[in-house]
């Protein structure tokens, strides 16, 4: 090496995660620019926490210009609700909570025989969207999650009944998003469409994003149902034929407690979680979501009904 070499300016090119981040930020700014009443669906889970993190970055140094909406099944993990409330307070945001229990109490919904409340979220979600006149609803859905999701647009138009009609989706060209909708219609927006589960975890690590503790390995009393480890809780488990055992587990997804399964894991750090996700032989939903196992076209059917 010559001692007199002239330092050349190194230009930082965007890596794959940087491109995904820039794309998501661009999408959020388009929504802020074109819609009157956007809202972020926020459960405290990792995908919605990532969405919120990106929203904070998209509008920095101004505050996030959207409220948050949580459709609460009542079957929650305490750690997640505590985390949700702490994050909302930290960013000074407004949180709208739609309690599924309210719909059950006044008879607009009835409990399912299996006690699972995930499918019951659709009606409270649509009612709340109508009540608050939300016209754009951000969701953390990713196309790598499931085959029906692979066909979802980034801007997904829903009719007044919240329905997704795959044959009527608008072509999505370049990075030009068409958010036009008629009164009563709304648009679901998925800024994480092009992320994979591994991208999400790598980005969480790179940005040091805090998550609820249940994503990391911990000891918990669980019982086996339909090949999944479910936690004890007000959702009716374990049954007589099922026994509680203490296991070291963590969650890969967080949803309604009645149908979100834990995976056996000793991953207590982000490095360990990433190594585990990279080596996993099961998809995130296949491993942990009983609701997606209901039928081969379960997600397609629920999306048509207005589910996220």
């Amino acid at each position: 090496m010559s001692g007199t070499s002239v330092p050349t300016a190194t230009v930082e090119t965007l890596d794959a995660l940087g491109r995904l981040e820039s794309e998501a930020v661009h999408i959020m700014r388009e929504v802020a620019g074109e819609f009157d009443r956007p809202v972020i669906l926020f459960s405290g889970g990792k995908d919605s926490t990532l969405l919120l993190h990106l929203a904070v970055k998209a509008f920095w140094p101004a505050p996030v210009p959207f409220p948050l909406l949580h459709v609460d099944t009542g079957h929650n993990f305490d750690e997640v609700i505590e985390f949700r409330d702490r994050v909302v307070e930290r960013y000074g945001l407004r949180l709208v909570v739609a309690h599924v229990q309210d719909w059950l109490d006044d008879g607009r919904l009835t409990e399912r025989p299996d006690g699972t409340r995930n499918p019951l979220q659709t009606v409270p979600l649509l009612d709340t969207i109508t009540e608050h006149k939300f016209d754009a609803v951000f969701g953390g859905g990713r196309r790598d999650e499931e085959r029906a999701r692979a066909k979802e647009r980034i801007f997904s138009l829903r009719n007044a009944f919240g329905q997704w009609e795959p044959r009527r989706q608008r072509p999505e060209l370049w990075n030009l998003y068409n958010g036009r909708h008629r009164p009563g219609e709304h648009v679901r927006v998925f800024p994480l469409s092009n992320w994979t589960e591994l991208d999400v975890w790598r980005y969480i690590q790179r940005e040091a994003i805090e998550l609820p503790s249940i994503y990391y390995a911990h000891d918990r009393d669980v019982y086996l149902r339909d090949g999944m480890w479910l936690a004890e809780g007000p959702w009716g488990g374990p049954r007589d034929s099922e026994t509680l055992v203490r296991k070291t587990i963590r969650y890969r997804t967080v949803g309604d407690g009645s149908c979100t399964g834990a995976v056996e894991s000793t991953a207590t750090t982000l490095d360990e979680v990433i190594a585990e996700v990279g080596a996993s032989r099961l998809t995130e939903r296949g491993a942990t979501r009983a609701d997606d196992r209901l039928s081969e076209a379960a997600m397609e059917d629920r999306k048509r009904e207005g589910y996220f």
Partner: protein
Amino acid sequence: MSDLLRLATAGSVDDGKSTLVGRLLYDTKSVLADTLEAVNRASVDKGLSTPDLSLLVDGLRSEREQGITIDVAYRYFATDKRSFILADTPGHVQYTRNTVTGASTAQLAVLLVDARKGVLEQTRRHAAVLALLGVPRLVLAVNKIDLVSYDKGTFDVIAKEFASHAATLGYPTGAVVAIPLSALRGDNVVTHSSHTPWYAGPTLLDHLENVPVDPDPHGEPFRFPVQYVIRPRTAAHPDYRGYAGQVAAGTVRPGDEVVVLPAGLRTTVERVDTPDGALPEATAGRSVTLVLADDIDISRGDVIADAARPPSVTDELSATLAWLADKPLRANQRVLVKSGARTVPALVTELRTRFDEQKLATTDSPDSLSLNEIGQVLLRTAEPVPVDDYTTHGRTGAFLVIDPADGTTLAAGLVGAPLPLLDKH
């Protein structure tokens, strides 16, 4: 080298596209055990002796029932070298609009042909659409090579015929690569096949991993459509005023002279802000917030651009449209045009040509443009818009044509005549 490649697939019905995509996912181990188990189960139910890899990607029940793909599906796979975002577009002729969608973001397209059938009308049509949208690189996947006994002569004829078609569309020689493969058996998809000793080129995956894709943004004139004005008005930032957007072309650095269009006001970039700190430079594709030296009136839809090489500002657009709606376009139709972050009313004043992609010829002054037809038109916009020619700056030369009544996206619009064949004016 970029570690992310966006690609699209296109092909006719039954070319085995779903099987090829399934094979790429399967051989790069992007398919996990539970998904595979479901495919195996479904294959057994259908009475098949080997797993039907196309079931990995045929997503909707309506498609599985009809055995076709009805919409663009996005797939994700990764190797140690690159991550891939694949837009899987259907081959059914009535869904060609999805090829336009998939191609609009693709840096490379894989076009499938059946080795037994060779280059079909549909292949020519897809190639024309890919050329129109400026997809810079093509792979011709000559599939089902096993069904022609791995015959070199058959492959050579198809490769040569396609190369000549691609050249007519404006593709330089090095931009098109033909690969003999069998998606069903895995020949030359991920591993070299012992059945094609006469083929010395790369496997499909080798090529996808190594093909250069990102043009150097340095030297390109800077383009920045303003998406949102950031004004916190908080105690910590009482006077902050920044312009949020994604760099559409070129690069931006503090001190750069810029012009704000359509107003034409000039100023200097003071800072290139991100929440992680100010940057010495931002290149195309990066979302940033620009702080400018002068306090001038800028709002969503304006374009901040290189002051020395600005886009043109015009209320008369000579453009090419790929018509994507069931309802045909006629002259004097009122539409909305969305370019960058700006949406303006416009009138289609003239239909100049309609392109016949089969004969690679144009018809003058057509009465209409129907679904899947491509043509040149003249548009008058309600106010001047800053635009570039699509061929030189895709991001600022592209626009949507939207139905003002119901919000439907009617057409993909490209400023100018990106397909030289189309240009008769």
